[in-house]
């Protein structure tokens, strides 16, 4: 596993996404209310750029008419066919046994540690004063 430095934290404010390609893999990094998430940007169903979809909540009902809408902003809905995935785990809600989108660990690390490595940050100039978003893959 390699740790890749993605961006200074300031570049990914809450509500934003960053798309990048790492080792030929299309990746998207999300900042949702200060928490960072990473997913492979390819829907396991038919290959759409999944991470261009909207972030919605989870609609559930024990019985008809008894609707709960929770986890707002944590469910990613594919821009083509609307398949829903859990941003935290990549779990599919329409076919959890067969389909999962690859989820990656994303963390914030201080520049002092990033400078020491081992990190891959070819395209970023890293300074010790800042914090950085780092993804493992």
């Amino acid at each position, binding site marked *: 596993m390699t740790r890749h430095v993605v961006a200074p934290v300031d570049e990914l404010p809450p509500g934003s996404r960053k798309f990048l390609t790492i080792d030929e893999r299309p990746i998207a990094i999300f900042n949702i209310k200060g928490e960072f998430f990473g997913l492979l940007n390819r829907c396991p169903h038919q290959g759409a750029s999944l991470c*261009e979809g909207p972030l919605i909540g989870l609609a559930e009902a024990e019985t008809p008419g008894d609707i709960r809408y929770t986890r707002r902003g944590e469910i990613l809905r594919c821009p*083509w066919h609307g398949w829903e995935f859990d941003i935290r785990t990549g779990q599919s809600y329409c076919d959890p046994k067969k389909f999962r989108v690859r989820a990656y660990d994303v963390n914030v690390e201080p520049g002092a540690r990033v400078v020491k490595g081992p990190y891959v940050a070819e395209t970023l100039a890293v300074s010790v004063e800042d914090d950085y978003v780092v993804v493992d893959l």
Partner: protein
Amino acid sequence: MNMQFRPGEQKGTEAVVKQAIADCDIHPTRKDPKGLYPYLEKRWRDHLDAYGALVYQGMVVGPLYPKGQPNASRRDAVPPEGGVQGSSLKFMQQQHLDPNNVALGIMCPLSLQGFRNLDLGAALARATNDWQVAEWSGQDSRLRASVVVANEDGEASAREIRARAGDKNFAQVLLMSRNTEPLGQRRYWPIYQAAEEAGLPIGIHAFGNSGHPITPGGWPSYYIEEMVGHSQCQQSALASLVLEGVFERFPRLKVISIEAGFGWAPSLAWRLDKHFDRLRSELPHLKKKPSEYIREHVWWSTQPMEEPDERQHLLDVIEWIGWDRLMFATDYPHWDFDEPSRVLPAGVSKENRDAFFLGNARQVFGIAA
């Protein structure tokens, strides 16, 4: 608020799908609600400004199909220069025609039929057909237009078809599955007569406004019931065409069922045949079993593809229908788009793949490479 946005990177213009394909259901869209005005007589522009266009659908205050995704379209299909999905030829080429190696694309413009004012309907059909040639098929030789007709006016429709006969821009006559009467009834026969004379297949696309509930059991609560209801509408349309004797009267007529599924085809045919054995005397004008008319006259576009859990079930259904009867379609730019590289299970022979993706369409539309 969740809005679609673009990461700034699209598939390149290089084809990523090696197999050349025919896409039998592409939806070009007007750039704005007045996009057809340059092709309409002033009399009808003024009419639309003053009165609008009334359809067979009550209580409508917004678009009929914003469903599932915005404009019922892929969120990643908004042209970079602005406008709604499907309104830019350049972006359609860049996002779909080039990378998906589309050799032949059949356009099915929607929401341009089923008007209650028949004269307005005829004017809009004519304008739509001029627009398709001027802005689409005339600009990209891979694209072919559909003859859009004022479906509720058989004679006006026949005039429009005859006006386009022999024009290689046009590949088929387009009808919707939902009309004020079942499609086999005699008011629609002038359409079939003109299409047969012109050598144009009739494409019957799901959707349209009929004034009737989409299900035979009444108005449903959910969009998903409407999506599934399109298969039921298509079954009614096909049963009507067969049982009214349309294929006896017009023996060279070809029908393409578009965007309505095909998994139900064997079941419909079996049921028709079973009842026909018992009720034949009601229909002395039929010389063959209903299933034989379906097999001889009907082709099926594939999107939205059936996706059973067991792939063998799909192959079994296709075996009944015939690999020579299915025609691949994506429905671009709509949200239920089928991706050509993912649509067929592994293990299909090259001969069948070639027929499915391109050969059958070339044959049905009579368009050589």
